């Protein structure tokens, strides 16, 4: 037998090596079980990995992102005339909508002031840069450079310019991981408009997540808008997600509104407290979206 209790023969070291191998295998199995069951004991490790990797990824990714942006700019430059024409047309259309929005906002404020209304929770926004990407076949997630220190909380909703793209699942001090709506673990209660049909948007790691569990089956049509519905309380109501795209093999697919390829900056939706308005108050809607109320009676008493 090559193994000696106190000897230094080759058999001894081989035995030690095998022992270490078995220990590593068992440790990996234990971590897998904890990871698969989303055990909170791994939270510290996740936070540590986020906080360490996000700045390093940001640093090494900067030149690569610059090259990619330059390539994109060159492409746009070659197509500038058509791009300008498109932008002018968009500006004309949007100017008309701006007038309509301002009129409706003022009218809305007046109507709310006439009643004792509890406004839906309003939101603050934080902008963050996308520094990391899971880039893998099993997970669709991104890492952003905003975390607990910036007021981000677990479950915080993340949007690109206009549409919801996912929510925060892991949080570091200055970084967070966002799981995208296309990820296989993503489940979002949604509402389809028009028709007010409730359903569940289920990611499956494909570009078109699927819709299931309709409240009114048979009324789903192509082109319906898919909005968040606030069932479950994680996503605020009414954030756009995409449109019903196709019905393939009895599965309804959704085309996300967000352009994931161009995702460089994201907006995080931070919930604020409720605001109750008294019947005699004047509601002031500031240009930056802040809502305040003022009581004329109090001013006269003073």
């Amino acid at each position, binding site marked *: 037998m090559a193994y000696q209790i106190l000897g230094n023969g080759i058999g001894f070291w081989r035995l030690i090596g095998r022992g270490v191998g078995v220990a590593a295998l068992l440790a990996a199995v234990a971590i897998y079980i904890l990871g*698969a069951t989303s055990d909170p004991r791994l939270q510290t490790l996740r936070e*540590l*990995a986020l906080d360490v990797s996000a700045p390093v990824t940001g640093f090494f990714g900067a030149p690569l992102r610059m090259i990619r942006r330059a390539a994109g700019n060159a492409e746009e430059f070659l197509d500038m005339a058509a791009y300008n024409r498109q932008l002018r047309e968009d500006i004309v259309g949007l100017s008309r909508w701006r007038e309509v929005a301002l009129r409706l906002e003022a009218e809305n404020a007046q109507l709310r002031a006439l009643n004792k209304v509890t406004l839906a929770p309003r939101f603050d926004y934080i902008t963050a840069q996308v520094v*990391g990407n*899971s880039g893998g076949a*099993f997970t669709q997630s*991104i890492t952003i450079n905003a975390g607990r220190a910036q007021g981000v909380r677990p479950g915080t909703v993340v949007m690109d310019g206009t549409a919801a793209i996912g929510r925060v699942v892991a949080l570091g001090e200055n970084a967070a991981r966002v799981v995208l709506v296309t990820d*296989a673990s993503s489940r979002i209660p949604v509402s389809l408009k028009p028709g007010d049909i409730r359903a569940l948007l289920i990611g499956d790691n*494909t570009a078109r997540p699927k819709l299931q569990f309709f409240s009114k089956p048979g009324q789903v049509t192509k082109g319906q808008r898919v909005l968040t519905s606030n069932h479950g309380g994680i996503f605020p109501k009414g954030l756009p997600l995409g449109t019903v795209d196709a019905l393939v093999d009895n599965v309804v697919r959704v085309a996300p509104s967000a352009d994931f390829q161009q995702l460089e900056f994201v907006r995080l939706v931070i919930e604020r407290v409720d605001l109750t308005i008294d019947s005699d108050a004047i509601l002031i809607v500031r240009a930056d979206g802040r809502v305040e109320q003022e009581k004329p009676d109090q001013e006269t008493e003073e």
Partner: protein
Amino acid sequence: MKAFWTTTWTAALVLATSFLAIILSHIALGVGPDSTPWPRLGTIVVFFWMLHRPGTMNVPVIFLLGLAQDLILGDIPGAGVLALIIAVIVLDRMLPPLRTMPLVWRWLGFGAFISVIFAIEWILTSAARLAFQPLDLVLLQGCTTIVVYPVISVALRQVLRIGRTPRRAL
């Protein structure tokens, strides 16, 4: 004393290049399901050092790197590291003969290594999520990783030569 510095330098080189590869796999250049999955640079570097510096790239180091990769990339913690360790155990006998073989044979060996890893990881991820994961993205990422291997291998061989060049006599 010289042996100590050589060992330290090798360990630093192996760890630094492995972590750098994992970080580079994580850079956000194309996001979402429409973008091509990035090659697993971390796995390529681990395989390279297993061949060329087996004393340094041992099981505890592989465990640490696999765990770091899982945590940084946001995959299910443990799935990647478990797949990596099982692949190392399964293909343990394949590695020593590959060390002296030409690049093409090492490339084929890496193909087998990454195939075992992705197969195990696919099974583990599907089991954890209670649903079969789409295979197309897995195959695509596996292929891109295999295609990239020779480039990284040649680059790392150049890195290996750092510090070995004899000083020219003054």
